[in-house]
């Protein structure tokens, strides 16, 4: 009965595969090809230079700094975003005290909170970055003004102009702008979990923390995993916030340099498109490694309900 199966699949997939090959695979191949040239991006003549760009890349301090920052973003941003997303979603759906008819429900006003949480998601990241740039402004920005207003002048900072804080400031913005989406996504996931599970758990005397880890999280695992990959890709990019908000940009002292922005500066400022594509290839490798790790780690038995 297996017979003809592959032809059947191929028939369905032919068109998408062709489109995919032309628009996704071919730029890949092209980019990898350019990474072996000394192409400037300003003229169409270039020569093959072998592994010279890769050799440069391995010895380039800024590139390694950028990789370090991306890895840090990769660890912190998804963890905090998804953690907060799960927490808020849990509170919105299961966190409230049991009211008349339902054993489990969200906190009061949860539907309003959902809208508020989702709001940052509606704004374009460029607007968000611009807004926060003003917020962080050390002279008349909202944060320092607030700290000054409540008498905590000692805590006022240079924020984006301080190499120790700049990257963390960016992370806060990335978390802020993404958390709402996951609140809504996880809320949707949680509302499809049958209420009887919770009721049973409550009858057995489980508290909220226990319900979360024993029921909600396991049943939501697929969603969390998808969210993790998606968040990871956002963390590996971070281009817009760096470009719009930071000193230099990419500074101060390269403290917010990320791979995506480095590709951009190499192409559009230095006229070294060959090297830029090399960084792009490195980015591709990092992304693939990340995706493989996440899918391997996240593999679990699926529960049907």
């Amino acid at each position, binding site marked *: *009965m297996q017979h003809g*199966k592959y032809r*059947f699949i191929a028939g369905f997939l032919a068109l998408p595969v062709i489109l995919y090959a032309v628009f*996704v695979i071919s*730029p*890949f191949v*092209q*980019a990898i090809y*350019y990474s072996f040239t*000394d*192409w*400037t*991006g*300003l*003229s*169409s*003549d*270039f020569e093959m230079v072998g592994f010279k760009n890769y050799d*440069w890349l391995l010895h380039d301090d800024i590139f390694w700094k950028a990789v370090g920052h991306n890895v840090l973003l990769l660890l912190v941003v998804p963890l905090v975003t998804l953690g907060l997303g799960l927490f808020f979603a849990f509170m919105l759906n299961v966190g409230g005290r049991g009211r008349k008819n339902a054993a489990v429900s969200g906190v009061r006003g949860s539907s309003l909170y959902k809208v508020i949480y989702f709001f940052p998601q509606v704004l374009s990241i460029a607007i968000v970055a611009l807004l926060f740039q003003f917020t962080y*402004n*050390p*002279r008349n920005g909202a944060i320092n003004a607030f700290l000054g207003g409540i008498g905590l002048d000692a805590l006022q900072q*240079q*924020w*984006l*102009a*301080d*190499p120790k804080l700049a990257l963390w400031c960016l992370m806060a913005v990335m978390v802020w702008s993404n958390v709402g989406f996951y609140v809504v996504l996880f809320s949707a996931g949680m509302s499809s979990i049958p209420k009887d599970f919770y009721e049973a758990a409550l009858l057995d005397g489980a508290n909220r923390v226990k319900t979360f880890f024993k029921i909600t999280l396991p049943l939501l695992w697929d969603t969390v995993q998808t969210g993790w*990959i*998606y968040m990871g*890709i956002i963390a*590996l990019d971070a*281009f817009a916030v760096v470009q719009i908000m930071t*000193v*230099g940009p*990419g*500074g*101060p*002292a*390269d403290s917010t340099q990320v791979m*995506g922005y480095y*590709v*951009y*500066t190499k*192409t*559009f*400022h*230095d*006229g*070294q498109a060959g*090297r830029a*594509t090399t960084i*792009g*290839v490195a*980015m*591709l490798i990092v*992304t*693939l490694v990340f*995706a493989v790790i996440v*899918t391997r780690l996240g593999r679990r038995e699926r529960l049907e309900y």
Partner: protein
Amino acid sequence: MGFSSEVGRRDLIKRSAALGLITVPAMSALSACASGGDDDSKKVDKGKKSAKNPLAVNESAALDVVIFDGGFGQQYAKDAEAEYAAAFPKTKGKIKHAATQKIQTVLQPRFNGGTPPDLVDNSGAEQMDMGTLVGKNQLTDLTPLLDAPSLDDPNKTVRETLRPGVVEMGQFDGKPVWILYYAYTVYGVWYSKTNLAKLDVEYPETWDDMLKVCEKAKKKGIAGWTYPGKFPYYLPFSLYPFIAKIGGREVLDSIDNLEPNAWKHPAVKAAFEAYYELYKKGYILKGTPGLSHIESQTAWNEGKALFIPNGSWVENEAKKTTPDDFQMAVSAPSSLDKSDKLPFGTLWASGGEPFIVPKSAKNPEGGMELLRIMLGEKSTKNFIKQVSSLSSLNGGTDGLDLPPGLASAQEALTKAGKNVVNPRLQDWYVTLQKQQIGVGALGEMMAGRMTPAETIKKCQKFADDTAKDDAVKKYKHV
């Protein structure tokens, strides 16, 4: 039946979706600029050479111009294009004008595809790397333009009407002239005569006086200095001529030439230490390291700080926030002490707004002719009036009522006489100057996170790295 566990329909979809998710963002960055076709030149025919048309412009050919829409705006270029259309009536409606702040993003694909415009004002934070353009032979030699008679006086060539140093700045190696700098920028320490008068002081001509003025200001709650902390490469506008003044112009030349240990010259150390003292004594406006150029200029306009290193475009750029009685002025850097090699008045002035005619432009003669028109007296006066900046045309200010900043720039230039320096780091090695030395070293020093000694070490390392990098084309002072 058909689909059993082996293939797993869900898995297939899931995996392809995951792959798609990964690849799209990663590759969009890479595929943004695939290189285009070869340069199969489709130039327009030359026109007839005549006294009115010395460059033999094709009188009916289209003209394609891209202008950097920054501190100077674009109106001056539009006005010059109208002159061009008046001189060659058959081009009516065929002059294509575009203006952008993102020069490189807009033009890189066109250069790469072999269809660049006929004239480009390659300026701003996103200018294309000149070294690369010249190195890859992407520009037209402007010598014919310089040897053509000037617009106003047929007995003078365009070359003879330009300010000293302008032609040399457009040369990279030897004879050809690749770039024509249209504006003429005076860099230095900018201040408000009114605000100094309020403190009952004059512009300090020595560093000791500078510190005294700052101290006096500090007592009144005013900062001495501010600068665009987000773009600290404004600091060199007053710092580099200061170095030249202390140690002679050879110090700057050896820095430009990327000579080993150029930064370790005692003059550099003395200048860095003087500036660092401004930070240490608390004379820098609080929060300056986080300010953009507009924000710092505004704070300066509001009288929160007395001095700012800047270029003569600031008068036009800060117009909206400048009080009417501000009396903007520029001065050369103060003297450090009596052993300075060059007299007070030594300052940095050089061409700004680099105009280029791409090699594969369709109508290069047209591009050059437009430049010739722009360098005529009529367009120059129009430019000066509109944007309060000098142009590369020597003179042209006669009979004009100059705004205070520009008048002061003109004065400073006269006072400097021969002692005008022109550090080339910022057009030869853009990344080294802006990102590395500017943001990575000077910005860190002035924010108090690096001592002068560490900063010098850093600068030297950056310069050495650039010297070693064979992807960067090198230039030397002749």
